[in-house]
């Protein structure tokens, strides 16, 4: 695998959508390529940042209202 293949598969790697053979190939490349490794960590960090930033719970009063409405 070269850097271009790696970068094309990075989305799917970060999203855990690669099959086990592809994961092994990609991990092997990452071990030997610090730049792709950094890029991977950056994309994974980005995904966590989006998740963490957009996280919020349902307001309790609304949850209760809905529960009453549906029961």
């Amino acid at each position, binding site marked *: 695998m070269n850097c271009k293949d790696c970068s094309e598969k990075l989305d799917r790697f970060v999203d855990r959508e690669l099959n086990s053979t592809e994961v092994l190939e990609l991990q092997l490349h990452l071990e030997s390529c610090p730049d792709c490794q950094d890029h991977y960590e950056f*994309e994974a960090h980005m995904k966590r940042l989006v998740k963490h930033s957009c996280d919020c719970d349902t307001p309790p009063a609304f949850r209760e209202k809905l529960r009453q409405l549906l029961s």
Partner: protein
Amino acid sequence: MAESPARTAFAEEALTHLDTLYRGALRLTRDPDQAQDLVQEAYLRALRYQHSYQQGTNMKAWLFAIMRNLFWDRFKGSRKEDVSLDDVGEFVLYEKLRDEGARPEADVLDKLAASEVVKAVETLPPLHREVVLLVDVEGFSYKDAATALGVPIGTVMSRLHRARQQLQKSLYDYAVESGIVRGNGRPQVQQ
């Protein structure tokens, strides 16, 4: 209203996915009151069409589909923003920052406020926003996201890819505006 035990059990199970629906509705409508209206309507509709839910399939994806379809019905009527993205071209924030001498994670990602990230997500066109919400925020697989959105997996992947590039572009622009990086991508701190 006397309710059957089956209906009650169904409602109970459906309510375990409330946070996912509420978060999705909040980011799609960008307004807490509208989000609550949308979620309430989605749940009422889900109960009405309970028979069309196939046991053993992904209920969260099914509920999300109902909610986002309601959103799109309303959205089409009052459309004031672009549905899709202009092509920003390949924009890879990591490469841009690295090529310009910044440390992408330490100099930039660690300095972005959550509110700015939310703003960047909320300014994505809804067609792209919903893919980010499902895959990044809710952790859906591509397959489940495809089911919820009623599109092929390939469409999920291409929308997600473009959405991430646009998101990174927005965050880069913000980082420049707010002085986190200079216009050329260099960090503010002297080396």
